[in-house]
């Protein structure tokens, strides 16, 4: 129950942060800071894949609603939701995930979190800029944007967790 409330609050908080703060920041060189994958990444591991996809889709559409992108965020959010189980299976620790674990920096450590989240970000950013640009002629520019946006997005996502999430690992 507490989990549902927690994730619902995060749902709205991440929409707000992505649409009104990070989408308004324009650093140049086509860099766009993506923090919305963090919400999808931190949803419970046990969550059914269908529920995960529907939640992500609604989540993405909500960001689109506030930033005139007509479904671009929904498409990327849906893609990472679809690929998340494959990725987690691939990166699963030897003993498996703890039941009810949240894959934040506190529970999984900086190393594991960064590896997994960078993979998610690379997929997400590449898909996002590919759909946005949609020209094979500009494919190098798409790669450049993807590579430049990923470290900044990772940094922002780690900072968000350090600032707003409770450290529950030593409980």
């Amino acid at each position, binding site marked *: 129950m507490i989990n549902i409330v927690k994730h619902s609050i995060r749902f709205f908080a991440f929409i707000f942060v992505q649409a009104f703060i990070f989408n308004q920041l324009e650093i140049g060189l086509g860099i766009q800071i993506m923090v919305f994958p963090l919400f999808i990444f931190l949803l419970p591991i046990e969550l059914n894949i269908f529920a995960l996809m529907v939640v992500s889709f609604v989540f993405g559409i909500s960001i689109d609603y506030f930033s005139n992108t007509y479904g671009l965020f929904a*498409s990327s959010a849906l893609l990472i939701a*679809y690929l998340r189980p494959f990725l987690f299976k691939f990166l699963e620790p030897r003993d498996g995930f703890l039941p009810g674990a949240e894959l934040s920096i506190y529970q999984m450590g900086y190393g594991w979190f960064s590896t997994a989240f960078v993979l998610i970000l690379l997929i997400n950013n590449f898909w996002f800029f590919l759909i946005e640009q949609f020209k094979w002629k*500009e494919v190098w520019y798409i790669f450049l944007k993807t590579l430049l946006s990923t470290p900044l997005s990772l940094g922002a996502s780690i900072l968000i967790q350090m600032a707003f999430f409770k450290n529950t690992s030593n409980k």
Partner: protein
Amino acid sequence: MRNLIAFLKRFRIFIVFAILQGVALSSYFTNLSFPRSQYLTTASSLSGKMMEINNDVTKHFNLAYNNRKLQYENIQLRRKLAQSNIKIDNGVIKINDTIFQQQYDYIPTTVLNSTVHKRNNYFTLNAGKSSGIYRGMGVISNNGVVGIIHTSSEHFSIVKTVLTENINIDVMVEKTGVYGLLKWSGKSPKIGTVSSISNDLSLKKWSEIVTRGGSGIFPKGIPVGKIKSIKTVEGKPLWDVEIYFSEKYAKLQNVYVIKNLLIKEQKEIEETIPNENE
């Protein structure tokens, strides 16, 4: 049998994924060219209200710059006032003007939300149908052309700016009248391109580019930019022209929507052109 069920199970996930992905992508690509609805955009009322609140905070960021710009424009207009001018030629009797009829009307609006680094950039304006703004009208600032209205709701509207891939505004070189189509490469919000200029026409660097006014969306002679570089397109008899925009789109706040009072008449008479293909 068990394998088949497992296979179907996996396939079912993919089907749901594909359907939702199809919805998202078709919504994105159809709205790029033709907006079907205003519900998914910042022209809808809830989203528009949020943008207004957002703008209330951020509008002060560039206040000094925008005030200077408006002041400059006021000076220019003041110069044109009768009281600033001396009558030089006393021999001419001025009669009530019947030669000129007003063709373009301007609706002042404010930009609520803007982006400049996406591949296709849209601005949200704080006026809509209730102020007489409809799809297809031109938008300018006092420094140059901004874009064309893409969608409008009761109190908000969305501009497809010149910072989109296929804005295709007809522009010309001010001095010589050589004309082409305005496009944007997506690299920098300061630089645009003009395509389909035949390469047997001579162009000069730094010559002014203005709107041509052919489609009746913009008046003739609204500034667009200056020519930055001229290159040849490989394999085509065309110039690839890059221009510096005259407006700084990242700081833009006050814009005017252009209402062409005679557009209906122009459209009607142009429809009478016989179509050779039929």
